[in-house]
């Protein structure tokens, strides 16, 4: 509460005077939604728990103390882990039940039953995705924390220049838009999934004779349509829906946020490189060229220009700045490798899932679902846009790392000393290879891979549809 109030005053002040002041608050704000999602799942992102959580912790500790029970103080981490494993067991249980039911229908049931149960495959895909994504966050907590902190330290503080401001504000706006949209769309998906069951329930309560619908087909040793069992089951299924969708949201949002921040840092670094070396304007470098525009502020600085006359001082200044840039470049490459190791396997499963799910969803939409029902249509839109978002962010990362090599060529390297030229050359070698995230080594994540997924799904869909039509005849 206090923080929010202070922030509000601050932002009013900064908006009127300078719009270009950034602080750690801007960085931390990007993580607010993801922390909410993770709290539902029982995962902690950083060890800095929010005030509310700390309060609970303190109260609990006081309670234990008063009761003279000197139980070894279970820290928050322990309780969170317990909560998480309980939810993990839930999800795993749901997957197993659905698989058993599917096997039973495929081996025993009629053709129509099989078609109806094909709708379960997307659900299973979702559950498996959710399990994988949330598991990684639990297991590699320290790595996530390290990523967040290192990126936090790189965040620009204080006043930034006009072009930097453009880059940062654009990236933050995009990220905000994506996180908010993604977050709320997935809530809509949860509601969309559970709506039929609840409407049926309400209708029955009002006395209408409507069949009871369960959202998912689990294999259960007892009859699910008994009076009290049914209501409990509905609630449990709602809880499972929330868990699985939140699991996927958490994994994806973290990926988006990390990649977005790394991309911003690459772009800021490109800008820094282009402004590195001062080149005087003349017939060969006319005023309107970008290099001249970058160096405009340096030209006006009297002290800097006298410094630049002396070759040695100039070389030292450039060398120091270049060293800084090289170190940061290496850090960013290492952080990208971290992101890759954390996310690549789950993204591979995600991509395989997507092709399979899109194919089955389109089949279900075309054959099974009626045109006024929206459950599967919403799911289709969600999974298409989710895959597209992943590919789009991956493409952004690739592009921003490629822009580095362009920036290195664009800086005024030809007026610097041999030593600096050699350094820049070696950097050119490295930046020639773009930095990106791969799906466990199979394909690099970019927009081209998105078209591959859609093409694959389309071919699977036509295959299944044609065999269905032939079967009908």
């Amino acid at each position, binding site marked *: 509460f206090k923080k929010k109030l202070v922030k509000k005053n601050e932002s009013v002040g900064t908006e009127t005077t300078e719009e270009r002041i950034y602080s750690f608050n801007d960085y931390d704000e990007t993580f607010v939604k993801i922390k909410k999602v993770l709290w539902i799942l029982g995962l902690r992102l950083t060890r800095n728990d929010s005030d509310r959580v700390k309060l609970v912790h303190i109260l609990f500790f006081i309670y234990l103390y008063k009761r003279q029970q000197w139980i070894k103080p279970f820290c928050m981490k322990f309780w969170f882990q317990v909560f998480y494993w309980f939810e993990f067991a839930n999800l795993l249980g749901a997957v197993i039940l659905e698989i058993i039911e599917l096997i039973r229908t495929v081996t025993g049931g009629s053709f129509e039953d099989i078609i109806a149960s094909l709708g379960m495959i997307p659900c299973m895909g979702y559950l498996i995705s959710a399990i994988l994504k949330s598991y990684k966050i639990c297991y590699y907590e320290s790595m996530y924390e390290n990523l967040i902190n290192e990126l936090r330290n790189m965040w620009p503080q204080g006043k930034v220049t006009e072009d930097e401001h453009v880059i940062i504000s654009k990236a933050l706006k995009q990220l905000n838009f994506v996180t908010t949209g993604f977050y709320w769309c997935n809530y809509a998906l949860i509601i969309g999934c559970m709506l039929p069951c609840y409407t049926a329930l309400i209708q029955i309560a009002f006395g209408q004779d409507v069949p009871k619908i369960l959202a998912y087909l689990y294999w259960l040793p007892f009859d699910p349509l008994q009076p009290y069992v049914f209501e409990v089951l509905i609630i449990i299924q709602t809880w499972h829906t929330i868990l699985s969708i939140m699991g996927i949201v958490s994994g994806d949002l973290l990926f988006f946020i990390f990649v977005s921040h790394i991309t911003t840092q690459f772009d800021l670094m490109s800008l820094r490189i282009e402004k590195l070396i001062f*080149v005087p304007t*003349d*017939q*060969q*470098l*006319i005023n*309107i*060229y*970008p*290099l001249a525009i970058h160096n405009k502020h340096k030209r006006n600085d009297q002290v800097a220009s006298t410094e630049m006359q002396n070759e040695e001082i100039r070389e030292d200044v450039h060398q120091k700045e270049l060293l800084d840039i090289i170190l940061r470049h290496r850090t960013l490459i290492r952080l990208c490798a971290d992101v890759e190791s954390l996310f690549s396997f789950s993204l591979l499963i995600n991509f395989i899932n997507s092709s399979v799910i899109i194919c089955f969803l389109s089949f279900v939409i075309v054959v099974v679902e009626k045109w006024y029902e929206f459950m599967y249509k919403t799911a289709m839109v969600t999974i298409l846009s989710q895959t597209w978002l992943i590919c789009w962010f991956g*493409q952004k990362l690739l592009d921003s790392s490629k822009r580095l*090599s*362009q920036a290195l*060529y*664009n800086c005024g*390297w*030809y*007026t610097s000393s*041999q030593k600096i*030229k*050699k350094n*820049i*050359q070696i950097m*050119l*070698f490295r930046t*020639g290879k773009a930095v990106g995230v791969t799906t466990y080594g199979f394909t690099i994540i970019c*927009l*081209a891979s998105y*078209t591959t997924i859609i093409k694959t799904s389309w071919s699977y869909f036509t295959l299944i549809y044609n065999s269905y039509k032939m079967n009908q005849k």
Partner: protein
Amino acid sequence: MMTKVKAQGLVTDLMPNIKLMQAAGHFLFNYHSDNSGMSMLLRKVYSSVHAVLIVVNYVCMAINMAQYSDEVNELTANTITVLFFAHSVIKLLFFALNSKSFYRTLAIWNQSNSHPLFTESDARYHQLALTKMRRLLYCICGVTVLSVASWVTLTFFGESVRFIANKETNETMTEPAPRLPLKAWYPFNTMSGTMYIAAFALQIYWLLFSMAIANLLDVMFCSWLIFACEQLQHLKAIMKPLMELSASLDTYRPNTAELFRASSTEKSEKVPDPVDLDIRGIYSTQQDFGITLRGAGGKLQTFGQPTPNNPNGLTQKQEMLARSAIKYWVERHKHVVRLVASIGDTYGTALLFHMLISTITLTLLAYQATKIDGVNVYAFSTLGYLTYTLGQVFHFCIFGNRLIEESSSVMEAAYSCQWYDGSEEAKTFVQIVCQQCQKAMSISGAKFFTVSLDLFASVLGAVVTYFMVLIQLK
């Protein structure tokens, strides 16, 4: 607010193209000498009228397609025509929505850097680019007019019928249709009489203008690519003198005075023929050829104190010239890269749409081609569509391919000059340039594909494959 832009750089070079585009009805309102409110309004009205006529006639064709969609052959033929002219509508709309981007690309080369020793070479390659752009424009204009003429001529051959599917017997019958170049639904009866002549005239106008709209925009894109390629040629050509200049800084070389005299022998070649005024009033010789007539060789001072360290006895001014040559080269190369990036941003989406529609059209044409059974109107029209569509794709693929080749051959040029005799500075320059120019500059269709001859080959291969498969199935 339309800013009055002084015609310079690319705009001057492309003036004939721009004027033709304005005449054809594109929403191009810049680059007029007279910018008063009245004439601006007139121009907007002119473009809007054209746009309305073109879209209305296109919609009539689409209505005709929907009307006679029962019979497969009729439907296929109408779909091909509708898709064929979709290019024009899309390009008209694309330009109207994206004109700022086009203006920005045209303005990129308004000012460029210069170096006293390389002005001749610059002007020479600029002149080459100009000639090629002009030749391309004439060629494409000629092809457009020829296509319209042959289309209208073909209308008068063969029976003027359309196919109808008989609902009871499921056979195809023929029904007489008006003898017009394009099948379209009109609210009035066009079988004969004055209405027929009016519809015919409208369709001739429509054919000419819609083809012109699509083709002129493609010509502008290709002209930009020609310009970029010639600039790269210029950069490759000055690589050798640049190396020699740089070598003269620290090793003894004979005849260094020659290097600093901007080659006078080439001057005489470049004085242009003043009679070469193609379109009066559109093209101004003074502005363009002024540079060569002035010449830069005379500006250099050969007297002055020679600097002590120099083995060739170069003066300070000459040394400065030698050092600034690399700066000129690198800055000019960056300028070309910016130009190509801007071209890609401006026209990439239009290329994507073009390729999508062309792919579908070519698929249908392959199907139509399997039904050719002799030398008749059907054969000619199908082959005509096929060649025209493939020709359009080939047109921009070949220039895109040339750009890729030119930009990757800069590395070859850098290697084939005498870099081993150059100074350390020159060697580092060659290193960095070779590194950067290994990646070729290319135009991509909104990141989905690269415009090159590979693309054309894959399109052609796909068409041939479909054709073979369909023939087999028959």
